[in-house]
C-alpha cells in the first residue's frame, strides 16, 4: 500500500502516513475553514490501511494549533484505527505530543484520551 504524504500549508498539517512502518504522523497546524475537504482523503487512506494494518501501528500527533472543525476529524481518525485492536496480533498506540509549557495542548490530549478507547500516551515534546 502506498504511503500518504501531504505537505504542510499555513492552514493544514503535514501528513506522513507510512504503510510499511505503521508510523502515522500528523504535524503542524490544522485550521482550515473547510476541514471536510482536507480530511476526506486522509480518512479514506485510513479505511484502506485498517484492512491490512502493520503488526504495530503508532499514530504520532504533533499539533501546534487546531480548530474545532478539525477536532471531529482527528477523533474520527482515532475511531477508525480502533478497529485494528480487534484484529489478532495487531497493536495500535496513540502518541500525543505537546510542547513544554503548552498546557492547553496537554489538556486537549486528555480530552481525546478520555473519549477514545485506545492506548494513549501524552508526551512532552522536548
Amino acid at each position, binding site marked *: 500500500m502506498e504511503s500518504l504524504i501531504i505537505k504542510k500549508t499555513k492552514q493544514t498539517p503535514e501528513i506522513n502516513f507510512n504503510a510499511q512502518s505503521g508510523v502515522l504522523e500528523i504535524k503542524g497546524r490544522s*485550521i482550515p*475553514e473547510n476541514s471536510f475537504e482536507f480530511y476526506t482523503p486522509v480518512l479514506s487512506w485510513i479505511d484502506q490501511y485498517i484492512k491490512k494494518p502493520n503488526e504495530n501501528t503508532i499514530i504520532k500527533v504533533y499539533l501546534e*494549533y487546531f480548530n*474545532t*472543525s478539525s477536532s*471531529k476529524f482527528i477523533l474520527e481518525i482515532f475511531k477508525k484505527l480502533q478497529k485494528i485492536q480487534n484484529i489478532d496480533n495487531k497493536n495500535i498506540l496513540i502518541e500525543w505530543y505537546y510542547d513544554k509549557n*503548552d498546557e492547553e495542548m496537554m489538556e486537549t490530549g486528555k480530552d481525546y484520551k478520555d*473519549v477514545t478507547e485506545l492506548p494513549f500516551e501524552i508526551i512532552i515534546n522536548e
Partner: protein
Amino acid sequence: MLHAYDQFCKMKNKNIILSFKGEITSEIISMVLDVAENKLDAANEKGIIKKKIFNILVECLQNLYHHTEKGLIKNENTKSSLILIWYENEYYNILTGNYIRNKNIPPIQKRLETINSLSKDELRDWYRKILNNSEISAKGGANLGMIDVARKSGEKIEYNFKKINSSVSFYEFKIKVKK
C-alpha cells in the same frame, strides 16, 4: 479629511491591536491571524497567551466566515462584519459583530447562557460529550466553537443582540484573555 494623526492617536491610546470591517474571506482570515501573531510577537507576549488568543481568533473568524449572510438589509453588504482586538487593564479583548436574522437568535442566546452558567469542569465535560457524540457536518463545525472559546479564555462571554429592524439584529460578541 486629513485626520491621520488623530486617528493614529486614538488607536494608540486605546491600545488597538487590530481593527477590521468587511467581508471575512479565507484570505482575510489568514491575514488577520498573521497580523495578530506578528503584533503579539513584537510585544514579546508569552507563548501560552499568544496561543490562546490565536485559537480564539480562529474560532471567531471562522464563525463569521461560515455564518454571516448576505441580503439581510437592502443595499447593504450584510456579510460585512467587524473584528476588533485591543488591550485594556491586563486583558486582551476580542470583539466581533455581525448581522443575524432575529429568528436565529434564540438557539445562540440559549447556548451562550448555558456556556456562561457552567464551571470549567462542566465545560470540559460538555465539550468531550459533543466531541464524542455529534456527527461531522459538511461544514465541519461540530458546535464546539463557542465552548472551546470559553474554555480557552476562562472568562465569561459578553454578548448582545442589537435590534436593527423587525427581522435583523447585530450580534455583538466579546471575549477576554487575561495577560
